[in-house]
């Protein structure tokens, strides 16, 4: 074998191996890549993905053609000897007008599906064709959720249902959910790639974003990540959406609408005293129980959860049903008593930039009591 042949073989092997490596990155499934926009799991995400694939195919054809022409030109018209004098041309107007108009035409065609999707994604559909009734909602009423970005976690308010929760967004499957995205501090971006595109959370604005998850017949989790740089723990600002069958959703709503029960004795009762007293937890966290009931518009304790018109946005999450959630602190820590203890002891050490401070006045025993109380909040 000649030396040049061997080199050529090496180039081929490198190309094939490299190409296979690249292709292997395209494989995988939802378990391995839970945040892939290329694996949509809802109507709106699927529409966006469809447009992306149309564009990709057209772009790939253009790419192969142009790239091929470049390679051919560079190979065919390389200088073979130094005395060559190629024919001198200054251009060809017909040809040039052609290659101006042709891309413009291709783009004009591509504009049609793009624009129709842009307007489609902004249209709130009616829900009269709802197949499975949702007891918590009126027949023609889409579920509305206000999504509020905080440094560094997401708050969710369900104004029709009087529910306030955090990090874990619970929705009925197969239903269009109209979310309104906003923020209380800096700009964040709510992004659950398998369900919908990004929507920035801009202070002072409530921007609608439609979300819909496929019907799977069981509670299914979709993961998300804050997508606008928001300072120290931007990377630790995660979220997940749980899409449930209508019956499960109704049950979840009923549980979330309950007020917390005050423990009657033991560590948990001491913890409750600390929570609302010297622990100052209630300075930043909402917790609804009989003594701290949510109010209606007139300032009286709301009897019907739907009358809880004055849900307050505080610096920290609503903890009324803390242990109904899987994770906490921006969806990054598993919710268990050890993690909760470490967090309350020194939150900034657990998560850079955490607004929850180190509490000098709390002993480890105090924190154990608070954790015991929080564990009762199912």
């Amino acid at each position, binding site marked *: 074998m000649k030396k040049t042949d061997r080199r050529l073989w090496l180039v081929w092997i490198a190309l094939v191996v490299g190409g296979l490596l690249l292709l292997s990155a395209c494989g995988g499934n939802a378990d391995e890549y839970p945040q892939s926009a290329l694996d949509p799991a809802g109507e709106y995400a699927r529409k966006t993905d469809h447009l992306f694939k149309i564009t990709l195919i057209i772009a790939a054809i253009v790419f192969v053609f142009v790239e091929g022409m470049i390679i051919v030109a560079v190979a065919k018209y390389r200088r073979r000897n130094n005395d060559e004098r190629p024919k001198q041309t200054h251009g060809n107007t017909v040809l040039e007008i052609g290659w101006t108009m042709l891309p413009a035409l291709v783009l004009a065609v591509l504009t049609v599906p793009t624009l129709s999707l842009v307007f489609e994604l902004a249209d709130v559909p009616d829900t009269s064709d709802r197949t499975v009734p949702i007891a918590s909602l009126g027949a023609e009423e889409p579920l509305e959720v206000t999504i509020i970005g905080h440094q560094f976690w997401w708050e969710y308010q369900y104004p029709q249902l009087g529910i306030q929760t955090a990090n874990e967004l619970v929705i009925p499957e197969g239903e269009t959910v109209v979310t309104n995205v906003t923020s209380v501090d800096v700009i964040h971006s709510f992004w659950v790639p398998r369900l919908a595109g990004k929507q920035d959370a801009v202070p002072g604005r409530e921007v609608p974003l439609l979300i819909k998850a496929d019907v799977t017949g069981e509670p299914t989790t979709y993961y998300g990540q804050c997508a606008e740089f928001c*300072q120290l723990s931007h990377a630790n600002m995660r979220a997940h959406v749980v899409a449930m069958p209508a019956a499960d959703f109704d049950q979840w709503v009923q549980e979330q609408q309950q007020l917390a029960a005050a423990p009657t004795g033991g560590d948990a009762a001491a913890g409750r005293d600390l929570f609302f007293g010297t622990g100052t937890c209630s300075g930043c966290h909402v917790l609804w129980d009989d003594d701290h009931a949510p109010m209606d518009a007139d300032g009286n304790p709301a009897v019907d959860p739907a009358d809880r018109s004055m849900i307050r946005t505080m610096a920290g999450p609503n903890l009324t049903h803390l242990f109904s959630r899987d994770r906490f602190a921006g969806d990054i820590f598993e919710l268990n008593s050890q993690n909760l203890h470490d967090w309350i002891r020194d939150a900034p050490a657990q998560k850079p*930039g955490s607004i929850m401070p180190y509490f000098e006045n709390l002993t480890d025993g105090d924190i154990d009591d608070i954790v015991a109380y929080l564990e009762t909040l199912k």
Partner: protein
Amino acid sequence: MTAATAPTTVAAPKTGLHRPTAETGFWSWITTVDHKKLGIMYAVTALVFFVLGGLEVLLVRLQLAQADGNILTASQYNQLFTMHGTTMVFLVVMPIAAAFGNYLVPLMIGARDVAFPRINALGYWTFLFGGIFLTSSFFLGGAPDCAWVCYAPLSTGTYPASAGVLAGTHYLGSGVDFWALGILFTGIGSLTGAINFIVTIFNMRAPGMDFMRMPVFVWMMLIISFLLLFSIPVVTVPLIEVVYARHFDATFFDASVGGDPLIYQHLFWIFGHPEVYILILPAMGIVSEVLPTFSRKPLFGYSFVVFSGAAIGFMGFGVWAHHMFTSGLGPMGVAAFSVATMFIAVPTGVKIFNWLGTIWGGSLRMSTQCSSPSGLLRCLSSAGCLV
């Protein structure tokens, strides 16, 4: 007045500094107003910042090379990726264009120097000062940590959560001030350079060189000079507003009192998108000069290449909001800017085809100088498809 009182006989004024006369050595570089020397100084300075920007991103990449990496703290990481972006855009790619422009434009149009040599020198020194000022923030309380776009209200720090008992936990240091002022300084350098190029190219071309006989590189420098002239003042506004918000409690971007954070994004990107073309058009000009030379064939369709460059310049001011598609413009805004963004691809495509036409039927010598333009051709076409 007679010939006896010619200016040469007038004695130099006794006050003030002597006109510097060194032609070689250290002082010749410090005091020079020569366009070629300033061009070299721009290039060397840009290369120094290039190394710095590379080191910054090297640390970022090292941190990312393993899960839960602990090479950098969260704050250091934010500072380094912010400084990497800022350095590469404002202190590397922009001055490289100024370097080529300064060195080549007067030579290519047959002028002895640029129209305002002293302002040219002022521009360089302002840019250098701005760059040093920006970089010095590492040693003076921490570099900016607001990402290279430095969106408000993150950069202004005047959002409710930072108030009262919570202040101090995630306070942005003085880095943002260094960022805003540093970019202002380099902006002064860019503006003076832009005016200089426009005046030079309009007034100092050799006899007989009309606009449609100008080298394409000179055309592209003229176009980016106009882009700079119209876009730098726009970015100056939010930069100053950020400084005012941080130090004088101005509330331009504070939604709780009627300000709007999106105003910052609009103003930034009305500059920021033309900036993309400010960075690429000089390179396109260079490709349009190198390919004909190495193919031994004139540029294919000179006027198409020139006018597509001008079209990019004009359209570049009409696509800024495609950087804000997720910020909640509403479907009408998104639709309008989608269409504008798609069609700005047309003039870019025209250039690629014209370069291809230049090589086609030529005698291409693939030297080092020529492989980078053909590489750019390939990069651009693949990037264009991805977009």
